[in-house]
């Protein structure tokens, strides 16, 4: 038995809900299949906090203008040019309108009050965070008459000549084990929680990755689409990865396991050796590079080492730092070679040159005669207790995805647009983000392309 709708949305995060709402407002009958149980609905959106949108003037919640051109330059900077310019500029233009549209869907913003993020000009913050934003979108979708099912895992997609026909269900819904729809919106996220798939590109190192979001982001829809002729986009090894506490749970530790203390100390690997300039850049970039840096170290582990003078300089942490009265004692607790760590700290301390410390700018505190250097914020580590956070790569989302057009329509391997398949969110983020990341861009991609995909899917269905 099967059920038929105008638009089928697979996924349950920001992109999926924006698509569902837009399609429903476009007059279509809409069903949303969320693979996770209700509590875990929304994939990575659960853990997000803000969205980056262009705006021409200050608003109630945002200071100053953030022009399309500036957004574009920021995107160019973080991706190193690995982006589809036409799609990216289109997204940036649409992001201006999304700021208001998302509020019309019940989502509420708050001024940026605290924390260490200095994003008050570029990014809008969700009141109550990502889950609050999701709750609002779900409530609006339900009120509009969108049908929503949880634990609704799709096991197969029936696609013929680039045309979606039906989705097969693991568990029947109202007796139906198949959902047919005139249009499909795939918004089911990346494959970051699929360790086996990650291992295809990372090898055994992926066993040591921690996944910041839910265990339900397994990329099964992406895999089906690519297997059935949809064109892929993006480097499969590229992902949004930050250094998070090694004591965090394997899945769903979310935002609170991150560390922003790198700038206040040094980072060593399991051989107690430094391996990268801890003072290279300011927050947004620094935040996004350390996941990959740690992933490249032996056993994918590293330790942020600092001393007691700076413990109140960064956000309070979920896990307390590991402490030792001497560097050797600390090394013992971290299972590092005490002599090696003592030498690394001593060498670093000896190389520090005097300067005026200011962690909000690229200051003049730096090292000399040491490799790698610490080019900013270098201060001696010499006041006990000595402290450390163990860190591992924390994967947020992957960039391999389905190639899409400006209308969020999937492109097939032969270069032709699909008749009725659209994609939004992380499943197509790689079109815009070839590599790198800047805070809030995932949500921009999700909302902008979600709305476009929903609108276009409804238009197709009602034609």
């Amino acid at each position, binding site marked *: 038995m099967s059920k038929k709708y105008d638009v089928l949305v697979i996924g349950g995060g920001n992109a999926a809900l924006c698509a569902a709402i837009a399609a429903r407002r476009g007059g279509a009958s809409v069903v949303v299949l969320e693979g996770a149980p209700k*509590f875990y609905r929304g994939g990575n959106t659960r*853990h997000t906090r803000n969205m980056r949108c262009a705006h021409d003037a200050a608003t109630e919640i945002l200071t100053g203008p953030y022009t399309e051109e500036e957004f574009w330059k920021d995107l160019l900077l973080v991706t190193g040019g690995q982006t589809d310019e036409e799609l990216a500029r289109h997204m940036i233009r649409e992001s201006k309108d999304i700021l208001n549209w998302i509020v019309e869907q019940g989502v509420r913003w708050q001024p940026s009050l*605290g924390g260490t993020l200095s994003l008050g000009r570029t990014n809008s913050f969700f009141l109550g965070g990502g*889950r*609050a934003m999701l709750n609002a979108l779900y*409530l609006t979708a339900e009120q509009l008459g969108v049908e929503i099912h949880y634990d609704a895992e799709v096991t197969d997609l029936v696609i013929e000549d680039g045309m979606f026909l039906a989705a097969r269900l693991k568990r029947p819904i109202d007796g139906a084990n198949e959902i047919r729809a005139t249009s499909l919106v795939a918004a089911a996220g990346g494959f970051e929680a699929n360790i086996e798939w990650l291992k295809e590109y990372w090898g055994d190192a992926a066993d040591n990755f921690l996944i910041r979001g839910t265990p339900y982001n397994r990329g099964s829809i992406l895999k089906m689409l690519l297997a059935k002729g949809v064109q892929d986009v993006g480097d499969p090894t590229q992902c949004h990865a930050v250094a998070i506490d090694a004591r965090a749970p394997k899945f769903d530790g979310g935002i*609170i396991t991150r560390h922003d203390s790198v700038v206040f100390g040094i980072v060593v690997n399991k051989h107690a050796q430094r391996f990268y300039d801890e003072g290279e850049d300011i927050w947004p970039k620094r935040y996004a590079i350390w996941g990959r840096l740690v992933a490249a170290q032996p056993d994918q582990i590293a330790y942020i080492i600092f001393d007691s003078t700076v413990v109140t300089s960064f*956000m309070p942490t979920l896990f307390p730092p590991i402490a030792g009265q001497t560097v050797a004692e600390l090394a013992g607790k971290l299972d590092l070679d005490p002599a090696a760590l003592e030498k690394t700290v001593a060498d670093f301390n000896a190389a520090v040159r005097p300067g005026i410390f200011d962690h909000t700018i690229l200051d003049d505190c730096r090292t000399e005669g040491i490799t790698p250097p610490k080019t900013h914020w270098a201060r001696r580590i010499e006041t006990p207790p000595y402290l450390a956070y163990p860190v591992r790569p924390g994967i947020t989302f992957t960039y391999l995805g389905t190639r899409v057009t400006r209308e969020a329509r999937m492109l097939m391997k032969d270069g032709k647009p699909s008749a009725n398949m659209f994609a939004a969110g992380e499943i197509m983020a790689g079109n815009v983000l070839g590599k790198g990341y800047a805070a809030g861009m995932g949500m921009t991609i999700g909302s902008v392309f979600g709305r476009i995909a929903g609108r276009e899917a409804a238009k197709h269905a009602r034609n």
Partner: protein
Amino acid sequence: MHGTRILDEADRLMTVCNSCRYCEGLCAVFPAMEMRRAFSDGDLNYLAHLCHACGACYVDCQFSPPHEFNVNVPKTLAVARAESYAAYAWPRALSGVFARNGLVISLMAALSMAAFILGFAAAHDRDVLFGVHTGPGAFYKLMPHNAMAALFGAALLYAILALVMSVRTFWRDIGAPIGGRADSGSIFQAIRDAGELRYLHGGGVGCYNEDDRPTDRRKLYHHLTFYGFLLCFAATCVGTLYHYLLGREAPYPWWDLPVVLGTLGGIGLVVGPIGLFAARMQRDSELLDEGRYGMDVGFIAMVFLNGITGLALLSLRETAAMGPLLALHLGAVFALFITMPYGKFVHGIYRFTALVRYAQERRSAS
């Protein structure tokens, strides 16, 4: 380690929340938390009393149960709040009253109502007790005004003394400087925040009760109860002034100020508690301090009893039922006064005190 298991849990949660801070825009608890990196018992009690149990942070939290971080701020702070009532009670010997609150409150209500009925019956003939008394001074045929004023004045003064002593301990414990006083600006701010229940709005959408859909009903019923209480109190004050300043004796005609205030207040004290009781019964058990059923319901019932006996007395005061109804109403009021420092009534006092402290902290931070 803290004094109690619940404070240990509150400390754990505040450590989790302080490393997240997504909820900082929802209410006062989280900005107050952000001003601290470590939490004393007093800090945690302060945060517990800032929490209005709107439930928004629970519904919005990505780490609430069934997540392994098991973050349930409203419930944890509700238990901490309730435990702190006993911890700050004066005199200390009576702090145990909170543990069996429902029982104590109902016993007090029953006993004092019975005492008034028996007292009336013992002091008067049957034809006085069940007589029809009208016109000024009708009530005082059953109990002389001066006796009434002395008895209720004494009960109220005791309640105020006990509450002041408790709040003093609380004020010192939540980090106010010893001997420190609240400035008038902070008090004014707190009056506004408490008066409009500013933090029972879930960050703007309304508070959560039975599920993840926000509604504002608890706020409405709380307003009815609270302002109903204030109107009734105002009615009593105006009546007292009439008596001593103008020499006008109760009962007053229906259009007169004490009766108008009392009628409106009485309606609030009937509708409000019914709504609060219904909301409590519907509330998601994940958000509820289930161990405090007796205290919550005991207080709701006591307030309701005050309202309903007052309204009954008003409508039947010119009939033979006046005597017994007056005894019931006076019994209910007396029980309410005397149990005020040892029941749910105190939550408003501590909450207001915490709001003063919060306003102070905000002013000195900015």
